């Protein structure tokens, strides 16, 4: 058994199952899935260690249907778990037995593309990659690029304020989202923001983005699109000392060159990846991939500055891609890191963020914790913004291993908080980090956050048992 507790399902709701399903079917005919065999497909997201089939699943095709379904749940006091593509690594869309899943999977229309004003308006069931797909032939792209971008939905990107490898330059979802249409818990549809910049009045858009489905169902999004850069090229830098690698990252960032990505891999990760992808990586303590964008001349100039900085710190490897193939080779290992890990082990992927200056200490301490917990860990992460991704390796078939991995993970996340960082940089809290929130936030901090939820979701029906520690939210959850 795993260690994250979920509340006992509400027996009254379970007893009204047929009534609830009838009401939903009447409100949104053809959109309700209630056969227990079929609802099983929605029992988990990408945090697969935790599973629970929902009471029912509703997949509306139209905005008005989302509102109608939400209204039914509001009137009947039924909990609702919003779901995009179900790729959350944090259990952000894990159902409870007494909740219905309200999914955006059928809301996949591109509603408006406006190159003159550089935005796109979409229904939120579209995948992240398809947003770029809709505009790339005309030379534009949508910047946030979480590694699940082929599958993950914009709805989930907004819920988790997703980032990606390129957010060092382009920011995360909240920096690229300029408007939403949201269904409130009582079914009212509210529009926030639009093609113009910044809000008049309070920044409601800012609080909705990253709210993990706690405040409403986001059904439409207006997103900034950017002109595609002319080209991009990476350089590979290897060091035999994590501290020196950290220094190199800081020096690059300070130099005024703005790379689009600075990725980091440590030795355990390099070895697994090299074995799997044969990317030609050196066997060293720390590997950096730094990518810059622009025209040929601009790329050359930026890479010269970066190579000078790197060379001054005695790298064991310093390799600039000379061709598209070589660029692909440099990225190949990094992009296959998670898959390569999965080939040899089960792994748990964390995503705490630390201040850049604390990277070397954090890595050293993670190494010590690995020995204390007697579990291996590999590190692959976005170094430019301190967003770490320690991968804890374990065997899911070995009784007790998952619990040990969770305990090790909790220690790493607490370490991130101790050095001035946070529990999660881009995956979200979900259920996974819910009960660690008290390590980062005081009772007053959490109270202030919960008061925002009180405004949007006075009955606390939306996405139950996520984000807020169960104990802290007990009185509100009822």
């Amino acid at each position, binding site marked *: 058994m795993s260690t994250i507790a979920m509340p006992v399902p509400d027996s009254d709701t379970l007893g009204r199952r047929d009534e609830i399903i009838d009401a939903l079917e009447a409100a949104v005919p053809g959109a309700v899935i209630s056969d227990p065999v079929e609802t099983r497909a929605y029992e988990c997201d990408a945090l697969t260690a935790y599973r629970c089939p929902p009471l029912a699943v509703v997949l509306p095709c139209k905005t008005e249907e989302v509102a109608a379904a939400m209204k039914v749940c509001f009137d009947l006091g039924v909990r609702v778990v919003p779901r995009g593509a179900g790729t959350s690594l944090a259990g952000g869309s894990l159902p409870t037995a007494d909740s219905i899943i309200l999914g955006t999977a059928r809301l996949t229309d591109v509603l408006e593309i406006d190159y003159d004003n550089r935005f796109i308006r979409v229904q939120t069931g579209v995948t992240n990659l398809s947003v770029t797909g809709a505009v790339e032939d005309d030379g534009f792209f949508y910047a946030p690029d979480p590694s699940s971008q082929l599958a993950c939905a914009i709805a989930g990107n907004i819920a988790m304020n997703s980032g990606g490898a390129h957010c060092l330059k382009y920011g995360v979802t909240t920096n690229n989202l300029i408007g939403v249409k949201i269904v409130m818990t009582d079914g009212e549809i509210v529009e926030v923001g639009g093609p113009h910049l910044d809000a008049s*009045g309070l920044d409601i*858009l*800012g*609080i909705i983005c990253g709210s993990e489905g706690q405040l409403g169902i986001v059904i439409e999004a207006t997103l900034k699109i950017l002109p595609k850069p002319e080209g991009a090229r990476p350089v590979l830098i290897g060091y035999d000392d994590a501290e020196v690698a950290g220094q190199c990252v800081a020096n690059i960032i300070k130099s005024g060159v703005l790379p689009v990505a600075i990725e980091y891999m440590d030795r355990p990760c390099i070895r697994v990846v090299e074995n799997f992808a044969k990317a030609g990586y050196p066997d060293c303590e720390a590997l950096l991939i730094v990518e810059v964008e622009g025209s040929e001349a601009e790329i050359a100039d930026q890479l010269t500055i970066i190579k000078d900085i790197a060379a001054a710190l005695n790298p064991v490897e310093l390799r600039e891609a000379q061709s598209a193939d070589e660029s692909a080779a440099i990225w190949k290992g990094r992009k296959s890191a998670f898959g390569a890990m999965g080939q040899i082990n089960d792994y748990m992927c964390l995503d705490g963020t630390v201040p850049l200056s604390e990277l070397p200490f954090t890595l050293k301490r993670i190494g010590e914790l690995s020995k204390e917990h007697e579990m291996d860990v590999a590190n692959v992460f976005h170094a430019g913004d301190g967003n770490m991704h320690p991968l804890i390796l374990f065997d899911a078939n070995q009784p007790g291993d998952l619990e040990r991995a969770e305990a090790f993970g909790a220690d790493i996340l607490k370490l991130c908080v101790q050095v001035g960082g*946070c529990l999660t940089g*881009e995956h979200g809290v979900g259920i996974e980090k819910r009960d660690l929130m008290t390590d980062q936030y005081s009772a007053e*901090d959490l109270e202030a*956050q919960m008061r925002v939820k*009180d405004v949007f979701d006075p009955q606390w029906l939306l996405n139950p048992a996520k984000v807020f520690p169960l104990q802290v939210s007990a009185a509100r959850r009822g």
Partner: protein
Amino acid sequence: MDMPKTEAQLAALIKQAHADKTPLRIRGGGTRTDLGRPAQPADVLSTQGLSGITLYDPGALTMIAQAGTSMAEIETALAAENQMLAFEPIDYRGLLGSTGEPSIGGTVATNISGPRRMLVGACRDFVMGVRFVTGEGDIVKSGGRVMKNVTGLDLSKLQCGAYGGLGVLTEVSMKVMPKPQAAMTLVFEGFTVEQGLALLRKALGTPFELAGAAFLPGATSRTCLRIEGLKTQVDYRTKNLTALSSGLSKIVTGGEHDALWKSIRDVVPFHGSNKPVWRLSVKPSAAADIAAALETALGAEAFFDWGGGLIWLQTPDATAEIAQQIRAEIAPHGGYATLIRGSVQQRAALDVFQPQAPRLAKISQQLRDQFDPAGVLNPSLMAA
């Protein structure tokens, strides 16, 4: 005027005000006190006693400062490391005729950004965390000192642009950026508004990362394209952007360049007058039509930043009817208008901030009630 020296003292003062239901007027450097609906008589609570840079880590692009720290102190410290606040905070003293030193707390509380906003983001996009005191005197922190942080609800964003109404900021954590190695501006003279704004939108659709896009009307209009980056980048981009249109009149660099963008940032064209000034955020392609209609109907004057997305509008008068006319002109396209400069009488007689749709207005009021149940923090300053 109360000027607490510590966050705890500030919290105690607010706790008392909450108990007594005594309204407070929150004040940083005092350069923006004439923004918003005129204050009812209230005790002034100054954050100037909370001053100083708490942490500056140039290699991590991070600065944490107490809310009352002056922008001058912050900019001096950043300049020593060749860094900057990339969103180009406006200095309102010239426009509003105010004195004093603007503070970082006031900058964040008003969330008003300058010309580079359309490329890099607004003030709110550079706030990594805040500490604030609620209307009940509770000390709350949100976010932290790292760029990527999705841990819990983003109360920092909510504080940006709340004008102190959801809490008094005591400390802010900012992402800072390196100053560009080189910068220059292409100036095309004599274009009509439509021509100028069309060129700006065309340039913004290129990968050349325009860092400023303004149109200044006049006897000889100026369409200004600011280019920044490494020297090679600026040269390359200049060459390509110049090729977008005939009629390049000059390339501005150095001190003249810096002065040009400071003047756009600080709304210098409308300095030295008492006429009302409005800030309109609109869809860029609608800007020329909106401005033309208001020029005809109201005798207004306008200039444009953010490729047309930001219109600075000066009107001969400001009344509820005029506010309504301006907002009606924007409405079909989406966007809003805020009265930035107006007399006490004018600001009392009209909605300084754009009235919101009923449900959004209700949500905003409910949030205020949650964070400031007794209504003591800048009450009705943002009232629409």
